[in-house]
């Protein structure tokens, strides 16, 4: 296939994808999931930063009668939540969303 034929082919495929309801489904599902997770990590992180900025006393409270403060598990928890959320996204995007994407590409190739 020449380069111009390839471009024409890609354009035709793009047109079919645009009209495929599955594309709208994929697009809205994936972006909703991505934005929900984005808002989650923003709330978690800026919640932590707001505590540091406005209420250090909460983070300075010791756990039980030891010297370890509550700030430590909270800080480590923010790190772990970032790892867990990326894992969730990759699990769904590389599974469910990619399956749907494959169908869309397949159906556009006619």
């Amino acid at each position, binding site marked *: 296939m020449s380069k111009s034929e390839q471009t024409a082919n890609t354009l035709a*495929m793009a047109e079919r994808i645009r009209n495929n309801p599955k594309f709208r489904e994929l697009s809205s599902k994936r972006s909703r999931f991505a934005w929900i997770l984005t808002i989650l990590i923003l709330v978690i992180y800026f919640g932590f930063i707001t505590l540091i900025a406005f209420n250090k006393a909460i983070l300075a409270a010791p756990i039980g009668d*030891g010297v370890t403060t509550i700030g430590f598990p909270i800080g480590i928890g*923010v790190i772990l939540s*970032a790892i867990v959320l990326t894992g969730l996204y990759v699990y769904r995007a590389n599974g469910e969303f990619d399956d749907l994407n494959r169908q869309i590409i397949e159906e556009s190739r006619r």
Partner: protein
Amino acid sequence: MKTISPALTAPLALAAALLVPTLAFAAGDLGPAAKQATNWHAIVMFLIFVTATLGITYWAAQRTKTAADFYAAGGGITGFQNGMAIAGDYMSAASFLGISALVYGSGYDGLIFSVGWLVGWPIVLFLIAERLRNLGKYTFADVASYRLSRTPVRTFAATGSLIVVIFYLIGQMVGAGQLIKLLFGLDYVYAVVIVGALMMIYVTFGGMVATTWVQIIKACLLLGGATIIALGVMAQFGFSFEQLFSRAIEVHPKHAAIMSPGTLVSNPLDAISLGIALMFGTAGLPHILMRFFTVPDAREARKSVFYATGFIGYFYILTFIIGFGAICLVANNPEYIDAVKGGMALRGGNNMAAIHLSHAIGGDLFLGFISAVAFATILAVVSGLTLAGASAISHDLYASVFMHGKTTEGRELSVSRIASLSLGVIAVLLGIVFEKQNVAFIVALTFSVAASANFPVLLLSMFWSGLTTRGAVIGGTIGLISSVVLVVLSKTVWVQSFGFAEPIVPYSYPAVFSMPAAFFFSWLFSVLDNSPRAARERAAFEAQSIRSETGLGAEGASAH
């Protein structure tokens, strides 16, 4: 320098390092002579690493024939490998030496940086990675200019990239200089020259293939080394954090204050501003964004972020243990304390906390290993930065803006190699100018610029159909200029580097002002743009979104 090829400079400089350890005594600021005896363990391990990486560069040079090889390793890196390489690219000297130094100096405050540097990764994954991979070829400017006007948008994006790269290089060079100065007793200037020369060799000859493998090896070494230090620390305290912290409170002059957020970010606005910079800055770093073009498709791009987030998160937890370990095992040992300054001030500067700790735990042999690891860390990061800077110059500015795409691949590659060499020289000079700065702060400032200039334009170009060339260029430029100017007028540069008595701007971090400004003006100048070009650009969004979401027509994509 001009007449000697870089291939010769590095071995010469290294030979100088080996033959003239007595320079340390002449320098006079490195403590008693007896403690500066040449550390052969460190030297041997340095040499093994340098030899191995030069070997890889030679191998990579054979495989680097096309522009795709040079900029993107031919797109043949797997998600796991790229995750390692991203971790190697991202876990900088500022993270390893700088964060452990911050924890050593202020305790809990160091965690604020670690957490901020990690939470940018989910954002990269959810909003950036797959669309970036599907739309771009070699640089993020490919994506920003996908449906916008090539010349102005690429010029802006390349300028943003270069400013970020140069700021970031400063932090790395300073870390390198201090480290090698302490280990070899070699003059700071020679140290930064060695780093500059090696990175020029890796990038110029080996391109992205060599850079990727240097980063992967470095990530393994750094994760392994940091794990051993952290285990060594915990073993001394019966694997009990409670015991570690109790001892740290006893030793540290700030006592219990190190257990909670303190003075590092005293002003609430600074805390939020730093948070914004660290979180969104990651998604605007050109050397990080460039790594997504080395994988075959969006699927591998996503996987690489997950692996990278895991490695980096684990590493930051380790640096925290290392910082506290240094308080307990280094601060009260006169062997590691600066004889002149006294107190907790460390020999070689406070950025040496992790290095001294490795000696306290494993003696000379382990100190040698960790020093070699830190050296490898710096080399891997500066190589990634140099390659990103060089691609902004050759791919964006030279090939697209000046030559309007009418150039040969060979010529573009030559420009890129010349650019790598020039960036190396600039990095060395700036490393000398910024010798006395805390590297973690310089990197934090870099993130402010990345979050205010590159990130808003990249995000809007992929998500908002209304963005026009005029909006992107004016909004992005306002973000870029305001963040740089605010940084220059803040305490960090105006007082600490230029020596003025009072800062003009009372805030240390500009992102809380400059990032919203970039978004606002991008929006404003886009909606006010009624030109026919703007109408075409808005109409082109749908086709762009089909490609960005499905990967149809993506560079080197394997789906079809």
